[in-house]
């Protein structure tokens, strides 16, 4: 171990943050770029399934709440892209990786939002699962990533609450509304559990990420924590979680739950989920249609600068 590597390791051991210009192993840098950009892409692509419902929100209260939430997600994308850029990759390249399919984003956003109650379920379950992961990441060893997570976590809690509030109204509404809520829970439960990633034994990057203190908890631990806090919330709603094996285990002090369909997970990761194609096409189109705006703004700014310099 040379002296740079030793200094890096000492910082990790002492719970000190690694900052952008500090020496770091190339693999640490690459892992962070991969993870942070994947996270940023998820925030941006995640706006699509929800943005889809803004114009059809059933009341003003719901509409402003959803609009503010989706706006926040754009901000989250920005914080995370900025954090990734401190590692020496530029924004255009990050977009390229997303648009060409090299970079991934969270698989959950490849599922369709076919009814209004899906928006409630997403806020409650998807943001709920994301929060669990993000709270852990506020302690990540890379300073800019950890700081972005602190901002994000402050903003996230309203996302989950606006979703749960929707679920409460639907679950206490007409028979039909209650059925809608149950149907959304049925479709979003398992994909939400998959958000934590493959189980520890199958997860290729986990062990190294834990050693580098990027991740502080395993996928399975986070998933268990999510199940434990979410089951009582479903019970309060009077809805049934679609898992016959779900049962409180007195001895473990946790809920036992059924086997996740990992074949489905890997299929969606590979690009064969219900909406992969549509999501990516929408992003690419938005980026291409915005090109002239970006160019015009830059041309305008250059013109202003020349005018100033010639004075």
């Amino acid at each position, binding site marked *: 171990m040379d002296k740079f590597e030793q200094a890096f390791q000492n910082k990790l051991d002492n719970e000190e943050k690694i900052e952008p*210009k500090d020496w770091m192993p190339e693999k640490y840098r690459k892992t962070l770029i991969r993870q942070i950009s994947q996270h940023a892409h998820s925030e941006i692509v995640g706006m699509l399934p929800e943005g889809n419902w803004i114009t059809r929100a059933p009341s003003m209260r719901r509409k402003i709440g959803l609009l503010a939430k989706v706006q926040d997600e754009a901000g989250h994308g*920005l914080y995370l892209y900025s954090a990734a850029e401190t590692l020496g990759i530029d924004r*255009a390249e990050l977009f390229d990786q997303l648009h060409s399919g090299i970079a991934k984003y969270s698989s959950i956003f490849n599922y369709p939002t076919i009814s209004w109650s899906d928006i409630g379920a997403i806020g409650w379950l998807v943001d709920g699962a994301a929060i669990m992961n993000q709270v852990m990441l506020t302690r990540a060893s890379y300073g800019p990533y950890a700081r972005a997570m602190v901002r994000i976590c402050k903003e996230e809690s309203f996302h989950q609450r606006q979703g749960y509030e929707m679920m409460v109204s639907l679950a206490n509404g007409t028979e039909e509304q209650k059925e809608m809520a149950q149907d959304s829970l049925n479709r979003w439960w398992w994909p939400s559990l998959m958000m934590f990633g493959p189980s520890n034994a199958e997860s290729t990057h986990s062990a190294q990420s834990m050693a580098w203190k990027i991740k502080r908890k395993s996928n399975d631990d986070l998933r268990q924590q999510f199940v434990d806090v979410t089951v009582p919330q479903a019970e309060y709603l009077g809805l049934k979680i679609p898992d016959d094996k779900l049962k409180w285990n007195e001895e473990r002090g946790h809920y036992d739950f059924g086997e996740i369909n990992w074949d489905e997970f890997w299929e969606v990761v590979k690009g064969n989920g219900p909406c992969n194609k549509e999501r990516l096409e929408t992003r690419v189109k938005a980026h291409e249609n915005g*090109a002239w705006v970006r160019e015009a*703004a*830059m041309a305008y*700014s250059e013109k202003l600068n020349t005018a100033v310099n010639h004075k």
Partner: protein
Amino acid sequence: MEKKNWPLWEVFLRSRSGLHHVHAGSLHAADSEMALNNARDVYTRRNEGVSIWVIESKNIIANDPSESESFFEPASDKIYRHPTFYEMPNELKHI
């Protein structure tokens, strides 16, 4: 296809009067006016600031962290710059 990124800017916020501006994050913008407006829209959506500074990242000069030991060395052995260096009689108050 366009190759150029909009320039990168650093954003500093004063959260309320009486406090220093503190670094809040960064963003891309074509010019300073856009940088200010975007900084407002992303970094102060919940009244996090009463004043914003933006500066193009390339204009910030920073010390090299790999040389920070020698860079900050002049201060490390000057314990006489701290009040605890000086011995005061025990019975004395308010000093």
